[in-house]
C-alpha cells in the first residue's frame, strides 16, 4: 500500500468535509467597494452614465500614480524646508517608502488634501520630536546597473522588487530598531498598503 493510500479519507471524514458550507454571505460593503474600484478603473460603467467610459489607459493610471507621488513629495518638501533644530541623540535610520499597484489603487480615489494632511501630521510629529534628519521624494524613473558577462548593462526598470518601487525616503534618529519600527508604524503610508523598509545607517 502506498503512502498516499493510508491517507485516504474515511467515510466520516468525507461526510464532515462535504457538510461544510460552500457559500458564505460576504459583507454588503464588499460589493460597494468592488463596484467602486471597477468604475474608477473604467472596467464597469456606472449606472445612469450618458455614454460608455473608456478604459483607464496606462497613462491615466500613471497620472493617478503621479498624483499620489505628488502628495508625498509635497508633504516631504514642505515639512523639510521649514527651519529645524538638528536632532541630537540616538542612531540614524533610513526609512524607504515603497509603493506598488495595491498602494496606488488605494490612494487613487482619495481626496488629495486628506492625504497631504495625514502625511503632513506624521512628518510634523517627526520634526517636533527632533527626529527628522532628511527626507526626499524620488522620481518614478531611474536606472539599474549590473555587470553581465564582462559588460555593464543598464536597465530603466527600477521597480523590480517584491515591494514595488521606492517612492521616497526619510532619515530619522531613534534609540534602536524597536524605536524606529514604532515611529515608522504610525506612518499613513502603511495604512494605504505601502511598505516601509528600515535600515540602520552605519556610522563611519
Amino acid at each position, binding site marked *: 500500500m502506498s503512502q*498516499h493510500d493510508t491517507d485516504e479519507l474515511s467515510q466520516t*471524514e468525507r461526510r464532515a468535509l462535504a457538510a461544510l458550507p460552500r457559500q458564505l454571505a460576504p459583507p454588503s460593503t464588499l460589493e460597494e467597494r468592488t*463596484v467602486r474600484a*471597477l*468604475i474608477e478603473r473604467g*472596467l464597469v460603467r456606472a*449606472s445612469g452614465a450618458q455614454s*460608455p467610459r473608456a478604459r483607464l489607459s496606462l497613462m491615466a493610471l500613471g497620472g493617478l500614480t503621479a498624483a499620489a507621488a505628488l502628495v508625498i513629495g509635497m508633504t516631504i518638501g514642505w515639512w523639510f524646508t521649514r527651519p529645524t533644530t538638528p536632532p541630537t541623540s540616538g542612531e540614524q535610520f533610513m526609512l524607504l517608502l515603497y509603493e506598488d499597484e495595491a498602494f496606488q489603487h488605494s490612494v487613487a480615489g482619495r481626496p488629495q488634501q486628506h492625504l497631504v494632511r495625514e502625511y503632513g501630521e506624521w512628518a510634523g510629529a517627526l520634526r517636533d520630536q527632533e527626529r527628522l534628519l532628511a527626507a526626499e521624494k524620488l522620481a518614478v524613473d531611474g536606472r539599474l546597473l549590473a555587470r553581465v558577462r564582462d559588460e555593464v548593462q543598464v536597465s530603466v526598470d527600477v521597480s523590480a522588487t517584491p515591494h514595488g518601487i521606492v517612492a521616497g525616503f526619510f532619515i530619522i534618529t531613534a534609540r534602536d530598531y524597536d524605536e524606529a519600527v514604532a515611529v515608522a508604524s504610525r506612518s499613513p503610508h502603511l495604512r494605504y498598503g505601502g511598505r516601509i523598509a528600515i535600515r540602520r545607517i552605519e556610522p563611519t
Partner: protein
Amino acid sequence: MLVAAFRRTRDERAFRALYRRHTPSLYAMAVRLTGGHEPDAEDIVQDTWIRAVDALDRFGWRSSLRTWLIGIAVNCHRERCRRDAGLVPFDARDVPDRRSDSPARAGTRIDLERAIAALADGYREVLVLFDIEGYTHREIATLLRIQEGTCKSQLSRARRALRQALADSALPEPRPEERQRESTRHRRTQPD
C-alpha cells in the same frame, strides 16, 4: 447569460448580477484559504473581480466561470503570501491570533473549520481545493504551478496534520487524580 449581458453593456447593473451569483462561493473559499481572516478574504475577492473583469473578454469557456474565478482567487492569495513572507506582527501581544477568528459554526464544524484554518498555508490550499472544492490533482497542480506528485504528497500531509489537530482538540481534560499523580511523579524526579 449573465456574462454575455455584462460583456455587451459593461453596465454596473449587469456586473452586480454576476457578482451576486458568484461571490458567495468565492468568498467562502477565500475565507478558508486565508485561515479565517475575513479582511484578507475581502481583499482577495475584490482583487479577483478586478482581474476577472479586466480579462473577461479573453475568457474562452475552457472551464466554468466559477472555476476560472477560483483560479484567479488562488493566485491572488499566493501573491499575498509571497509578499508577506517573513513578516511577523510588530507587537505580537496586540495582534489577535487570526486562527481563532474562524466563523462560529455549530458542533464539529467549528472544530473542523478551526483545524483547517490552523494548517500551514500550503497544506490548507491543497486540502481546500481537493477535499472541499473538488478539484483534481492535475487541476490543482496547474493552478499552483507544482508537480502532480507534489500535490498528492501535500494533500497526504495536510490530511495527517488535520487529523492530528482534531485529535489534539478532542483530548479530554485530565481527571483531578491524574493531575495529582503527575505532580507527585514530577516532584520525585527533581534533584535535591
